């Protein structure tokens, strides 16, 4: 009989920055007992490009392309957030047409971003085909962006005062065409993945973020809504004429999943795509005529002061804080990146799960490293 118990040791597993499922260059240091994860430490910063510091050395209009590269999956939102902050400082009145175009672009980008989140989440739990289905529909949106501003990923489309280029009939046709098929596609996704029994057993009750925890950690976006918090900045603090549109705020529900679990985080995004479609229809129908940009001279100077604007980007609450000293470059830029805040909850909810679950939880948080590291 062995008199002493066998000593066991935790295994230190370094996941990333080069790993298929860390969604970019995130590094996770796991302490595992076999397959069981006892501790997770996210290590960020591999994609740090001094984006905030760069902002202090560039004129405002030159800084817009840099915001594209933060949340590169929803560049339109980043463009918009910066422009809104500068416009608040300059106290510019934005023409209604420009506001509507901004809404259309932001919502299209939200759908594109959520499609990617849906696809990669499927990939994380082992379903490859939904990923390519999502890619197929995202391609249609990217084609629209390419048509209207020439770029497919980093748009640099919005500018202080409005947008660079007007949209035309053909663009509206493309959007309508997309919307007319999109509901069927969503049904296809649901049949293929959302209500798949294996998928549900993989994600139900996993990585539950209770309402209190979501509030305490400052989570926002689909993650907070999946925990039952009906908080959407498009409704709570409407910007860019979002108050003119009818839409529902999807929240996590008990039923197939548990409130705040991976399945609900996933499904809230699916429902949000439906709502974005509704907003798009309304915005296209009511698109006002007029100017697509206010008159802002090149090389404008911004009055001294500070402004903080928050918008609802696909991942949550994106904030731009700008201090101006009255010159044409900002004195200080600070960005509140939703992915960064949302990622911080990961160690809290992934103690004691299996390695496979950790990947699913990370996928359900839907991070973009470009935004986290900036």
């Amino acid at each position, binding site marked *: 009989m062995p008199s002493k118990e066998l000593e066991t040791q935790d*295994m230190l*597993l370094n996941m990333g920055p080069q*790993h*298929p*499922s860390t969604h970019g260059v995130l590094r996770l240091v796991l302490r595992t007992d*076999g*397959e069981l994860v006892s501790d997770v430490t996210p290590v960020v910063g591999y994609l740090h490009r001094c984006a905030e510091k760069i902002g202090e050395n560039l004129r405002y209009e030159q800084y817009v392309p840099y915001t594209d590269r933060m949340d590169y999956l929803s560049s339109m939102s980043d463009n918009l957030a910066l422009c809104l902050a500068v416009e608040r400082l300059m106290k510019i009145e934005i023409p209604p047409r420009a506001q509507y175009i901004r809404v259309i672009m932001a919502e299209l980008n939200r759908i594109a971003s959520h499609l990617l989140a849906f696809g990669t989440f*499927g*990939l*994380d*739990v*082992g*379903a*490859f*085909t939904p990923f*390519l*289905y999502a890619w*197929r529909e995202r391609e249609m949106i990217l084609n629209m962006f390419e048509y209207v501003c020439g770029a497919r990923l980093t748009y640099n489309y919005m500018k202080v005062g409005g947008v660079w280029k007007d949209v035309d009939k053909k663009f509206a046709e493309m959007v309508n065409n997309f919307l007319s098929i999109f509901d069927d596609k969503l049904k296809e996704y649901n049949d*293929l*993945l959302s209500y*798949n029994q*294996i*998928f549900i*057993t*993989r994600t139900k009750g996993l990585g539950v973020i209770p309402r209190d925890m979501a509030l305490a950690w400052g989570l926002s976006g689909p993650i907070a809504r999946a925990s039952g918090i009906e908080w959407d900045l498009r409704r709570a603090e409407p910007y860019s004429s979002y108050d003119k549109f009818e839409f529902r705020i999807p929240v996590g529900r008990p039923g197939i999943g548990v409130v705040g679990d991976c399945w609900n985080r996933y499904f809230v995004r699916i429902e949000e795509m439906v709502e974005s479609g509704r907003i798009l229809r309304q915005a296209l129908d009511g698109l006002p005529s007029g100017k697509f940009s206010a008159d802002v001279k090149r090389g404008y100077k911004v009055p001294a002061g500070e402004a903080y604007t928050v918008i609802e980007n696909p991942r949550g609450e994106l904030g731009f804080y700008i201090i101006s000293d009255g010159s044409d470059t900002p004195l200080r830029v600070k960005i509140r990146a939703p992915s960064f805040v949302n990622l911080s909850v990961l160690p809290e909810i992934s103690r004691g799960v*299996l*390695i*496979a*679950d950790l*990947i699913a939880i990370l996928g359900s948080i839907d991070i973009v490293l470009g935004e986290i590291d900036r």
Partner: protein
Amino acid sequence: MNIWDLAKIVFVIALVLQGVPVLVWLERKISASIQGRIGPNRTAVLGLKAAGFFQPVADAVKLLFKEDVTPGAADRFLYQLAPLFVFVPPLLVFTVIPFGNRIGEEHLQVANLPIGVLFVMSVLSLGVYGVAFGGWASNNKYSLLGGLRASAQLISYELTLGLSIITIILMAGTVDMREIVARQTRSAFLSWNLFGGGNLLLLPSGLVAGLVFYVAALAENNRLPFDLPECEAELVAGYHTEYSSMKFAMYFMAEYAAMITMSALFVTLFLGGWHFPGLVDPADTSWIGGLLSHGVFVAKMGAVIALYIWIRWTLPRFRYDQLMRLGWKVLLPIALVNLLVIAVIGVAWGER
């Protein structure tokens, strides 16, 4: 050994080895059509594109020319040995599988062992060594986890697989592979073991056994939804993460060879082997009849494999513990009860 034996050995090895590239091509084309893509269509031999049929050849050539890396801290002996361990069993199993009827007096089967089915079961379980060795010898944490998962999974599902094979032994009353097929050729479809082997009372049991066997076969071959040992989302590539060049190709080919063997086994045990009512006449021993029976066998294998591929590109993956629960708490009891039912029916209403 006469010339026939030699010819059959060469033929079987060629069938499995040449089946691999065909299967790779099939998998890529089917997955492409499921996912709304085109799939490989660029490779050409002498200007003949053949819908990318030569893509696997290009892949093999590419792998041949890659550097063969052995990690510094690897256990060199086991590291070299492991790919062989996964590659040989599927080839060995094929020796006892009747891949056609007869040509003259020669049965289209390399060796008809009297213990055919038992041989299959024992050789199949060797494959787990290759996976476990590979995972351990690479000295990589992902490989280790993949190897551990694989060994646990293969051992668990082998039980289920074995139980459903025993069901077939009970139905057929023999472990002789040739005899098992011969019994399925007595009448039309209903004499197939999947449909009860000629006894209508056994029809439900045959279907259940077939289903259980198929699911367990998916798990044995590490195919989605049971591809945990090598799931790229978590373990990068699982037990063969560190392997490169032809050693990786061995693992890759072994996976497909195992699929071919497993589907051949399924066809032999459940789907009447080379028999197809109305198409193949068991009494016909001419060349044409023999080749036709082989064609039927291959076509059935193709159908089974197509289902494999379809499943793979549709479903998400199980989690490790869910997989174990499914194996031990669902499939194993079902297989056991099914075995009991067949035994009782066999005793009560048996033919003997």
